[in-house]
């Protein structure tokens, strides 16, 4: 198990003149609508408990207004909670003094924004050095590092442009370079790719995954798009009305949605592209199957199985046989039909 990086416990946020006064009501089950209608306060987050591990991409999903932005802004304390605890690397973020908090924001966590939030009066290069100059790094060194990151996100040669002269995708690359330049362990991304066209968005996801495979940052990534969540998320958490309704791997979310809200998210996706052999693998390894790696998606596996004249797949992990999967298993899993066989998985 990787190290615990961010631990959020018992976090509540109630927006309004006196949020703290209504905590007990919320704890006792008063919901978002009632709180707003009877008490004039907005329930932002309730009873949030989540562990985020070092080097992983934690996706947080939910519909508009479910509290995603509110949650991510608690991590660097752009929003103060009504009550709760946020521990990062074992340090309590909420008990930091003003100057400790500045230090934390400068060195330990950086952020990418949905609408880019670049400084329009500064060039691409000067935008990228912003975080570095907050760290007190000398100008020429800052520019050297900034140029390096601009190159990494594919913007070499654009250093002297102004943000307004760039397309949305390029502006967000600047946003990413600015965040990476500070060398912070934690990267907070609030719908960072939501404002981009589908093609550009896929492009940016690719860039992020490439960088992550070598940087191993702890990334908290907000999105309302399940395809995006499944593509880049190691872990996925789903928010509804300020509540975390499900946490797990992409496989968990797709196979065992906790409620209709989650099921609704997953209903339109191509399950064969998400589910992997490892998730479906059950029973004794059959001797006669074709051997395929557990990380393979069903789509690829079905293809391979159909092409081989065998009846089943022998699932392997690190060269070891761990179980078997039949064509029937895969068709059931891909088509959301509940199947009776096997006692480890039930499909919806």
């Amino acid at each position, binding site marked *: 198990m990787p190290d615990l990086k961010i631990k959020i416990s018992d976090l509540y946020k109630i927006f309004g003149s006196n949020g703290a006064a209504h905590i007990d009501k919320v704890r006792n089950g008063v919901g978002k609508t009632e709180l707003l209608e009877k008490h004039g306060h907005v329930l932002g987050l309730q009873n949030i408990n989540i562990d985020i591990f070092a080097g992983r991409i934690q996706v947080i999903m939910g519909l508009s207004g479910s509290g995603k932005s509110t949650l991510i802004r608690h991590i*660097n304390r*752009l929003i103060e909670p009504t009550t709760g605890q946020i521990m990062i690397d074992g340090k309590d973020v909420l008990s930091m003094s003003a100057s400790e908090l*500045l*230090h*934390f*924001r*400068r*060195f330990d*966590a*950086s*952020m990418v*924004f*949905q*609408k880019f*939030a*670049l*400084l*329009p*009066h500064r060039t691409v290069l000067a935008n990228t050095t*912003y*975080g570095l100059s*907050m*760290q007190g790094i000398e100008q020429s060194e800052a520019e050297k590092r900034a140029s390096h990151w601009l190159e990494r996100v594919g913007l070499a040669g*654009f250093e002297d*442009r*102004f*943000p*307004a*002269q*760039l*397309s949305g995708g*390029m502006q967000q690359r600047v946003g990413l370079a*600015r965040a990476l330049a*500070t060398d912070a362990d934690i990267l*907070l991304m609030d719908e960072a790719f939501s404002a981009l066209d589908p093609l550009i968005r896929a492009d940016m996801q690719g860039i992020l995954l490439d960088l992550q495979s070598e940087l191993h940052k702890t990334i908290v990534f907000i999105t309302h798009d399940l395809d995006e969540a499944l593509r880049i998320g190691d872990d996925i958490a789903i928010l509804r009305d300020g509540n975390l309704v499900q946490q797990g791997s992409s496989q968990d979310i797709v196979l065992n949605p906790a409620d209709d809200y989650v099921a609704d998210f997953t209903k339109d996706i191509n399950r064969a592209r998400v589910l992997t052999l490892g998730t479906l693998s059950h029973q004794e390894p059959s001797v006669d199957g074709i051997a395929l790696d557990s990380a393979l998606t069903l789509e690829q596996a079905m293809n391979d199985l159909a092409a081989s004249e065998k009846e089943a797949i022998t699932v392997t992990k690190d060269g070891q046989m761990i179980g078997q999967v039949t064509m029937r298993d895969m068709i059931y899993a891909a088509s959301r039909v509940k199947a009776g066989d096997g006692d480890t998985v039930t499909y919806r």
Partner: protein
Amino acid sequence: MALIDWSKITLTDPPQMPREVLRELKKGIDGTFREFSRGYGEAIENFFHPLLMFLKWFQDLLIETPWPLILVILGALSWWGSRSWKMVVGTVVAFLFIGWLDMWEDTMATLAIVSVATLLCIAIGIPIGILMARSDRVQAMILPVLDIMQTIPSFVYLIPVVMLLGIGKVPGLLAVMIYAIPPIVRLTNLGIRLVDKEVLEAADAFGSSYWQKLFQVQIPLALPNIFAGVNQTIMMALSMVVIAAMIGVPGLGVPVLRAVSNQYLALGVMNGLAIVAIAIIFDRVSQAFGKRLQKHREGEHGA
């Protein structure tokens, strides 16, 4: 003592204070203020003394500087602001014309008071605007004051200013500033409040302190608005030139006043047009400069 004179009320006369009471009230206020100015007038005058010295020095400097040098400086300023040869030529020709019509000295005096008033308005107005942008309470307190300053007839505040400081350059300068400072305060406040919330959040997320955010994000982004405020402040200061002349400020307003009382048509029109010429030059140059500040907003999409 009754506060309403019931016997006087008719359909055309609304309830009124009894005449003697009203007279006593006015006398009381006047007396108190006179007392105050007798007591503190000198202290206040001393307080403003350095300002007076500076104004005198600056005005003499402008008047004694050789005219070709002044033309070069004005031409350079106009180039710096507008980057347009047309503006530079226009400026130089306008000032040559002013000199040719024997208005050089008055024009220099007017330039002196308008520049000092503008600089002081900027130095005082921008910090006030920043404070207003920071807090809704401060804004709610200052906005009505600005409204009063802009709508009250200038003659009304000339009275206490003259009672306190007498006739002269400093009271004139104060009168000009009272009238000219509201736009710079308003537009600084507005400009800072209009800065994109997400950009501010980004500044916070990267660990900017209050001052870093103010100087590196808020003020630069508010600059086009602040500059529009400076432009308006200059225009309003220029429009006070004649009224300032009434309380002893030298400059182009003085001949205008003389022209009014003696019915000298040509004198009045010439000096009036000189004020207009200066106003147009300042306006065009500062607007061109303001536009240049916003250059980065021009998108040439795609690259």
